[in-house]
């Protein structure tokens, strides 16, 4: 086995993951810290002969992706909160038109222009409610530089499989920091990875093609790229529509399409998490994003001193992995949730699932959470 190491940033690993997963269209607009992903995609993707374009703003960037997605491309953009605000209308549009697109979001301290070079995990609530009408899009959170690679592949797979926009959530300290990565470990990740494409409609079929067709409410409509073959007409719309994509205000079928948008994600989504349970522990840490690393440091120290503690690392923040959270939390007395935002946004999003256990939020505004703070709470809980 090779011992070769490479120094890589999270952004570079996201770009590698995206390219390995088959992304062939990137459009973006520079913004710190997401520019690191933008630069990596522009140099790497263009070098392979695929499309990578610097758009004139974020609205154009994501709209270009939606257009390309309709033509069958695997698409991706990257931004931070100010750009996400501008993309919001188009994200809703991608959601309703069932267009796969990956939005890599590198968080920074907000609101408004905020502080570009300060880390934050503060866009969680915004993402939970980003689709008007109360729908959920998948949000996949990266917890380490190394995991940036495989989580990007997973996020793209979800986007394709479910025909939906997906947010790949990271933060400045992951995408702009570099670490040494074992080349063979990365190769193993690649070997292990599966690459999923959206379900395709057979363009030679005599069946009439409907852009948003399903039999069961939770089925994913088969995709046919506009311009493939001459038999079928493909139409997309963000206005309320029937299965064919014809404008239809409140027909039973149109309302069924709306219900389907929610059901297809809810019923087909596979929760992503890691569980590190220690027998006899009464304290559980629920962690994600870079705060997960702070928690791991704290746990290492605690376990050295024989303090018992378990950890649930969540990668799929949304849809909320309700089953594991509600089952697991009944077995613990104390739940510790560290996150870099002032109110504990994810803690609030899952609070209703935690029955008896005491919840301790550990928060900070603009700096990563010091492992010492988590360690203290582990100790206090005993």
């Amino acid at each position, binding site marked *: 086995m090779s011992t070769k190491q490479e120094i890589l940033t999270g952004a570079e690993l996201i770009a590698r993951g995206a390219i390995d997963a088959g992304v062939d269209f990137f459009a973006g607009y520079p913004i710190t810290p997401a520019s690191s992903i933008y630069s990596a995609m522009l140099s790497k993707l263009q070098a392979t002969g695929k499309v990578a374009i610097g758009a004139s*703003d974020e609205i154009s960037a994501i709209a270009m992706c939606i257009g390309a997605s309709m033509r069958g491309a695997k698409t991706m953009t990257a931004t931070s909160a100010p750009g996400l605000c501008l993309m919001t209308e188009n994200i809703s549009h991608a959601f309703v038109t069932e267009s796969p697109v990956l939005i890599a979001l590198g968080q920074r301290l907000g609101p408004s222009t905020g502080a570009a070079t300060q880390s934050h995990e503060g866009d969680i609530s915004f993402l939970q409610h980003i689709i008007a009408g109360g729908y959920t899009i998948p949000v996949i959170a990266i917890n380490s530089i190394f995991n940036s690679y495989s989580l990007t592949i997973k996020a793209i797979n979800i986007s394709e499989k479910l025909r939906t926009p997906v947010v790949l959530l990271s933060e400045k300290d992951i995408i702009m920091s570099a670490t040494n990565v074992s080349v063979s470990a990365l190769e193993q990740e690649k070997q292990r990875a599966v690459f999923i494409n959206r379900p395709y409609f057979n363009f030679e079929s005599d069946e009439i093609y409907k852009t948003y067709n399903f039999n069961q409410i939770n089925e994913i409509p088969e995709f046919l790229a506009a311009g493939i073959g001459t038999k079928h007409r493909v139409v997309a719309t963000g206005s309320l529509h029937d299965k064919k994509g014809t404008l239809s205000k409140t027909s039973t079928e149109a309302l069924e399409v709306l219900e389907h948008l929610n059901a297809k994600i809810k019923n087909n989504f596979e929760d992503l998490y890691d569980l590190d349970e220690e027998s006899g522990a009464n304290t559980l840490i629920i962690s994600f994003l870079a705060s997960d690393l702070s928690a791991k440091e704290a746990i290492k120290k605690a376990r050295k001193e024989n303090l018992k503690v378990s950890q649930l690392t969540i990668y799929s923040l949304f849809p909320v992995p309700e089953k594991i959270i509600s089952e697991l939390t009944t077995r613990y007395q104390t739940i510790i949730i560290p996150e870099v935002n002032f109110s504990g946004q994810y803690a609030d999003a899952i609070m209703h699932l935690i029955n008896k256990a005491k919840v301790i939020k550990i928060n900070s505004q603009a700096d990563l959470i010091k492992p010492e703070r988590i360690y203290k709470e582990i100790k206090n809980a005993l």
Partner: protein
Amino acid sequence: MTTVTLDAKDFKSEVHPDWCPGCGDFGVLNCLQRALAELGILQHQVAVISGIGCSSNLPGFINTYGMHTLHGRSLPNAQGFKLAHNDMHVIAVGGDGDGYGIGVGHLVHALRRNIDMSYLVMNNSIYGLTTGQTSPTSGEGMKTKSTPFGNPEAPLNPLTLALGSGASFVARAFSGNPKQAIEIYKAAIQHKGFALVDTFSPCVTFNKVNTAQFYRDNTYDLNAEGHDPSNLMKAMEVASRDTYGDRIATGIFYQSQRPCYEESEKDTLSTPIVDHILGISPERAAELIANFK
């Protein structure tokens, strides 16, 4: 009545500019400060309103009212400000990315709306703040972080865009020629209507093509060559011919006296909203109350 005469240094704020040493924006700031002082405008009569970018940090460095808004949104903010307070001088400032890229939609409408204000664009043909990506005014073939294999797009021509969008004042300056820039800024501020001044303001850190030396070598003053700024077609011709390449025109290209927005909307805008008397007259109030009796 006493008159106060101000000096350029009276327009200095307590914050020292955070621009790289040698950045063209220093020149723009100095010229703007001098133009205001020479026009005898007082600090409280001016608002400088920007978007986001290195250049958009300018309101922090000038001792006037200031608004640092969002990337690409200086113009709608500035127009709203001006409409609510039309007895102030409103000067929007920002970069080429801010004004000709993400905010270009606002520019087109501001030009045809023709509100009485000025807009100074510090054009360095690059996104400076985000450390050097191609901007809408970067030349074809230019290699930057966002175009590692060379820029495939044609640059935008801000002057023909403006002239074609109903502009009433269009000029171009160069931060390395302060004498001319000050005169242009003064004319823009005094112009009754929307005045666009594109100013070459080289980024010494990320643009090695559009340097100060490049502009020193390749610009000429079209007004010194007898250009008639009331001739729109002539302005169009010069702007499209002499914008990129080795003969670049600076000076006032075009100025017309078409009525500004405030003049067309005299009824509503003759008194600043902040000076409007709130509520209704006592007589009208008594009448209304009587209705409920």
